[in-house]
């Protein structure tokens, strides 16, 4: 393993040891001329081997870091997704977004799940080990200005502004939805009133028409009765004559 603090790798240790041994061996009478170079060559081979091992380990480490970052981003993305559905639910329950009551209820609902606090602040929960809720930990704190503090592990600091932007957009959308619902309710009430007024108007119009017809018919009946009386009188007079 490489000691990264001092930048000393296994390869450099072996090379140094081999070169030192080679230098010392070269002073041995007779065999020194052969032993020195051989030790140096062997040192080079072993050093190269360790260098390759370190390279493989580095690749594996980078892959693990990439996986950890992906996981961290998935947790973050899931938190934003929760925000959308939760706000929709609050709006459907009749709460107006961007009010203290709305924020209170939203925090009560989402803090245990994702760590949401009022006004787009969040202490982002990491799930921890399944079956052991005590292993949950706070991955980062993001305030409503987008500043990330207390970030743990491979949490991307660029997520701060992303979170704030997403949170505000979701709230705006929720407020718009709430306003549309209110408008729809008002329009519905108006349409019912309109319907009632229309029905009343139609009934009055019908009654006026019936009244007019009744007056005409009554007038006709009265006239015919008078005529009948006159005819009866004339018949009676002609009989008397």
């Amino acid at each position, binding site marked *: 393993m490489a000691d990264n603090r001092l930048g000393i790798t296994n390869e450099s240790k072996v090379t140094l040891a081999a070169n030192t041994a080679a230098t010392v061996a070269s002073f041995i009478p007779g065999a020194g*001329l052969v032993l020195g170079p051989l030790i140096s060559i062997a040192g080079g081979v072993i050093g190269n081997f360790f260098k390759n091992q370190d*390279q493989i380990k580095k690749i594996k480490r980078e892959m693990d870091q990439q996986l950890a970052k992906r996981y961290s981003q998935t947790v973050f993305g899931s938190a934003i997704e929760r925000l959308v559905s939760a706000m929709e639910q609050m709006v459907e329950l009749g709460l107006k977004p961007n009010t203290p009551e709305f924020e209170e209820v939203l925090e009560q609902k989402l803090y245990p*799940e994702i760590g949401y606090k009022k006004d787009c602040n969040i202490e982002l929960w990491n799930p921890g080990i399944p079956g052991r809720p005590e292993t949950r930990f706070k991955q980062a704190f993001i305030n409503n200005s987008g500043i990330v503090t207390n970030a743990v592990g491979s949490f991307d600091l660029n997520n701060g502004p992303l979170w704030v932007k997403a949170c505000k957009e979701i709230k705006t959308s929720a407020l718009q939805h709430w306003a549309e619902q209110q408008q729809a309710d008002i329009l519905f009430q108006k349409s019912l009133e309109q319907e009632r007024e229309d029905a009343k108007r139609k009934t009055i119009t019908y009654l006026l028409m019936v009244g007019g017809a009744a007056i005409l018919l009554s007038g006709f009946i009265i006239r015919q009765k008078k005529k009948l009386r006159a005819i009866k009188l004339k018949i009676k007079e002609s009989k008397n004559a």
Partner: protein
Amino acid sequence: MHKNFGQAAGVALASVVGSLINVGSNVWTAIKADALAQEFQKKIENIDSAKEYTMYIASKVFSSGRKIIDLGQARPGTATFERLLQKELSPYMIYKGLCNADIYFPTNQGALGTKKLFGSFTREGGVSMAYPETGPVWAAKCKNALDDLDVYYISGQKDRAKFERAEEVMVGTGGLSLAAKFGGGVLILALLMMALTTQRRVVSKLQAKAES
């Protein structure tokens, strides 16, 4: 001199052998690195597939819940609803309630015991057996589905209330209109009958007058 020449040849040979070993080691490292990269790429693809599958299974929570609501069987968030949801989701998972579940791999319909466990998921986003990334995905999608079911239920209730209110208004105004039409019709009919009777009497009297 011969001895020195032998020594030089030995050193040269060792140097060549050393170089060959280094080249071999480097080639092996390059192959290993390439294999690791390919393995990693495959792993990423598998993780993405697993996430897709998790999202698909989570969508079943909403569709099954909506079926329960449409049949008027229970309200979301109640113990009855959770029990019914567990039954509806049994082909895909052992749903333990509140988004805790043991999810199966997709399998053909087979004999009992052929289902293979994909992963055990918790409400907090933890997961065992499946890739860790699927845990938060499941938690978010499942909880969203339950919230969406609540929204679906509430909006259904609101629509029903609106319909009943509209029906009330229509029945009220319709009844008034019907009464007015009935009364007006009866009045007109009565007056018409009277008019016809009177006219017939006038005609018969005129005929009697003409004969006399």
